[in-house]
């Protein structure tokens, strides 16, 4: 509906008045209570889960989506070729009939050709059959400049032959993804990629149907969107709520128990908490300021996230181009006090870059730069700035959120106390901060990383290789780069893991390229009647949303 701007004020007022009257007489029809009646088996009659969503999704188009509210909803609407088998994040077939291996001929000896067999009972949510051609279309679409080629995530898939060329304006026909027949998909790579199956389990590789997408840019609205997952989108009231209901045509073995999932879009955590306490939500995060109040609550869910936060240096800018200055700053931060005082105990103090849950994680990593005042001062002296004398002025750049403000003040105080150095804090408005951050226009900031998938590849080469897209720190070490290249092509899991460990040793133990402070812990509340939440370290925003099909609402 297009709004005519000219001369329509009167009409607008009339409509608004009518709406005002309408709003006064209308009755609420969303959400509702979960009811107390029985549905047998101890399950409530109304199988509705109501969750807080952090914001309006930017897009529900799998090839374009990039942000946590988008992905949380997408996971319910689609199933890719593979999926996480359980909370251990093992990769299992979903739309694929089996895991391709070298033994079963699914992966060629040289690791360059994948032949993936599909289940023959795949259907779209509208009942139409889903075939290998649909996957071919979707994976090519990931490189289409008008779709995935304008997004954040295609870059993870550019080992597919012809992918990057298509993004740069080449032909999509040259992308080496081919449907051999209805149930066989063939993918060719330019170099072996041991994480390909994991990547094919992620949302950018979800299938979309050509005729649905062709309907125009509003195809992701409720009523138009067609997926193949356990739920279908029935309502998207923009900026207010999203309603999903169980997909009657779902072919997967993980049939959902919940009939309805309602996402309430509420960016404000404090308001979401009141809604939870008022019985409008079944699950919500605990704001940091309320962590104390719920520390002993039985409704609390705490789970480690694959995330590391700390001091991110620009290693090309003085004084952080000096490894000893980085060591001194890192050793000057009392992480335990930080977690207890600033984070109210929600978090895990660390000296490591890789978080627990990523293969290769070692709690001993970076121990040489654990909090130690005397050692920190020694490092500063080694750097040529005894007692901070002669040290160039340091500015810590942060965003303007409350938590960043608290964290930066803590760091400032620690550096003053333990190194005797005064640093400045520069607090910037969100987008201004991002702009400066992405262009590496800072000395030091509070940064870090949270995983897209549970593999060191997503933690080391993705950020620290010399030409990596997310190498904001401008770190460059040829020895590290060589190890990362070897690891990318290494198909033997153990040898590969070892290469990444060597890489992290260089990055952290030798170069102190990042000053780790803590691994993030998510802190949520769930009503006692929400049963079967299976959260994993890979949950981005909402705990357990990889396995919502296991969740049910108990009688209450």
């Amino acid at each position, binding site marked *: *509906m*297009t*709004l*005519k*701007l000219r001369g329509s*004020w009167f009409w607008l*007022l009339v*409509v*608004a*008045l009518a*709406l*005002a009257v309408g*709003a*006064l007489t*209308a*009755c*609420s*029809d*969303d959400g509702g209570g979960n009811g107390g009646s029985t549905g047998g088996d101890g399950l409530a009659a109304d199988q509705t889960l109501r969750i807080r969503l952090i914001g*309006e999704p*930017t*897009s529900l188009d799998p090839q*374009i989506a*990039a*942000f946590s509210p988008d992905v949380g909803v997408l996971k319910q609407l689609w199933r890719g070729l593979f999926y996480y088998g359980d909370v251990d994040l093992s990769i299992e077939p979903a739309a694929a009939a089996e895991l391709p291996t070298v033994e079963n001929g699914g992966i060629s000896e040289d690791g360059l050709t994948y032949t993936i067999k599909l289940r023959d009972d795949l259907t779209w949510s509208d009942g139409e059959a889903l075939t290998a051609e649909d996957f071919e279309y979707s994976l090519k679409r990931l490189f289409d*400049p*008008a779709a995935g*080629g*304008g*997004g*954040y995530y*295609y*870059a993870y898939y550019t080992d597919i032959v012809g992918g*990057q060329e298509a*993004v740069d304006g080449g032909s999509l026909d040259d992308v080496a993804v081919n449907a051999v027949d209805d149930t066989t998909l063939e993918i060719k790579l330019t170099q072996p990629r041991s994480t390909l199956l994991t990547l094919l389990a992620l949302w950018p590789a979800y299938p979309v149907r050509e005729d649905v997408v062709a309907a125009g840019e*509003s195809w992701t609205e409720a009523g138009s969107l067609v997926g193949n997952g356990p739920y279908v989108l029935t309502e998207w*009231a*923009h*900026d*207010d709520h999203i309603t999903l209901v169980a997909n009657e045509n779902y072919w997967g073995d993980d049939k959902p128990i919940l009939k309805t999932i309602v996402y*309430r*879009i*509420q960016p*404000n955590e404090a*308001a979401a908490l*009141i*809604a939870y*306490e*008022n*019985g*409008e939500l079944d699950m919500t995060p605990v704001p940091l300021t309320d962590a104390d109040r719920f520390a002993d609550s039985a409704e609390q869910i705490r789970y480690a996230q694959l995330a590391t936060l700390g001091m991110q240096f620009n290693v090309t800018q003085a004084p952080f181009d000096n490894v000893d200055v980085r060591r001194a700053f890192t050793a000057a931060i009392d992480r335990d006090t930080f977690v207890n005082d600033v984070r109210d105990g929600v978090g895990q103090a660390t000296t490591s870059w890789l978080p627990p849950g990523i293969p290769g994680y070692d709690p001993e990593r970076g121990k040489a730069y654990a909090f130690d005042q005397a050692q920190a001062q020694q490092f500063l002296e080694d750097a040529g700035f005894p007692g901070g004398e002669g040290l160039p002025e340091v500015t810590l750049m942060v965003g303007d959120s409350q938590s960043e403000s608290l964290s930066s003040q803590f760091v400032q105080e620690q550096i003053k106390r333990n190194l005797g150095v005064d640093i400045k804090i520069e607090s910037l408005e*969100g*987008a*201004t901060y*991002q*702009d400066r*951050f*992405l262009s590496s226009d800072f000395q030091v900031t509070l940064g870090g990383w949270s995983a897209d998938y549970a593999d060191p590849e997503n933690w080391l080469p993705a950020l620290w290789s010399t030409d990596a*897209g*997310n190498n904001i720190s401008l770190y460059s070490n040829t020895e590290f780069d060589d190890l990362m290249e070897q690891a990318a092509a290494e198909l033997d899991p153990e040898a590969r893991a070892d290469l990444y460990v060597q890489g992290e040793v260089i990055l952290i133990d030798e170069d102190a390229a990042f000053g780790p402070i803590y691994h993030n812990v998510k802190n949520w509340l769930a009503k006692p009647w929400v049963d079967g939440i299976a959260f994993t370290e890979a949950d981005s925003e909402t705990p357990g949303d990889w396995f919502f099909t296991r969740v049910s609402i108990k009688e209450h």
Partner: protein
Amino acid sequence: MLTYILHRLLWLFPVLFAVATITFSLMHLVPGGPWDTDRKLPPAAEENLNRRYGLDKPLPEQFADYLADLAQGDLGVSYRALNRPVSDIIWDGARVSVTLGLLALIVAVGLGLPLGILAALKQNTLVDYASVGFVSIGASVPSFVSGMLLLVVFSAELKWLPTSGWGSVEQAIMPVAALSILPAAYIARVTRAGMLEVLQQDYIRTARSKGLKEQVIVLRHVVRNGLIPVLTVIGPVAAALATGSFIVESLFSIPGIGRSFVVSIGARDYGVIMGTTLFYTILVVMSNLIVDILYVFVDPRIRYR
């Protein structure tokens, strides 16, 4: 009168052009762009996006393109809510915000007018003091404080009302209350002052001495003349209610235009920033025009030609 209205309406276009120019310049002057998030967009993807949305062209050309599209009623698409037409976003948001604003205006006038009139008629009595007390408190408590108080009392403690959302009567009560307290106090104050001034006029004394009934004096002379200053403020109040409700909208998670405006600025969502600013401009100009027209009916001394 008709020529006056036409004249005013024609003036809308230069005003819109000026606002568009200023907004466009400021928007591109601030650092950051629509694709800046905590992850870096691959350079090839950024090029593709910029080309697709015309952001690779020089700014004057972008502005000319924007104006050309605008002339055809095309406000472009959002980058945050990817590819949603801006006109849809404004329309959806404005429906909610204008409803909320009108309800608040009705409550504010319905509360502020009688309070002000009563206080003036019973000057220096308990009624007056109570009214002045309400005005002082109401005018000094910002809506996010009163809104939060309402939330804590009626949702968190008493559990009577839902905290957020939009669509039912229950959901409207608290935001309307939070939004209307301040303008109600403002209107009450202006009404009281206006009435008191009229009450001291010679013609009121004349009316009294001529033996007119108090009711007639109040209704026909005092209220009618005392309301002129009130009318002056209702225009800006109405515009402020329709546009300035973003705090209340954020607090109660109401999908209104104010909230989407604030979000769009943070996200450098150029199309939405431009469209919403122009929409607000029209709203303010129109509400002022309506008030100016209403003057004619209340105050016969005013004539437009």
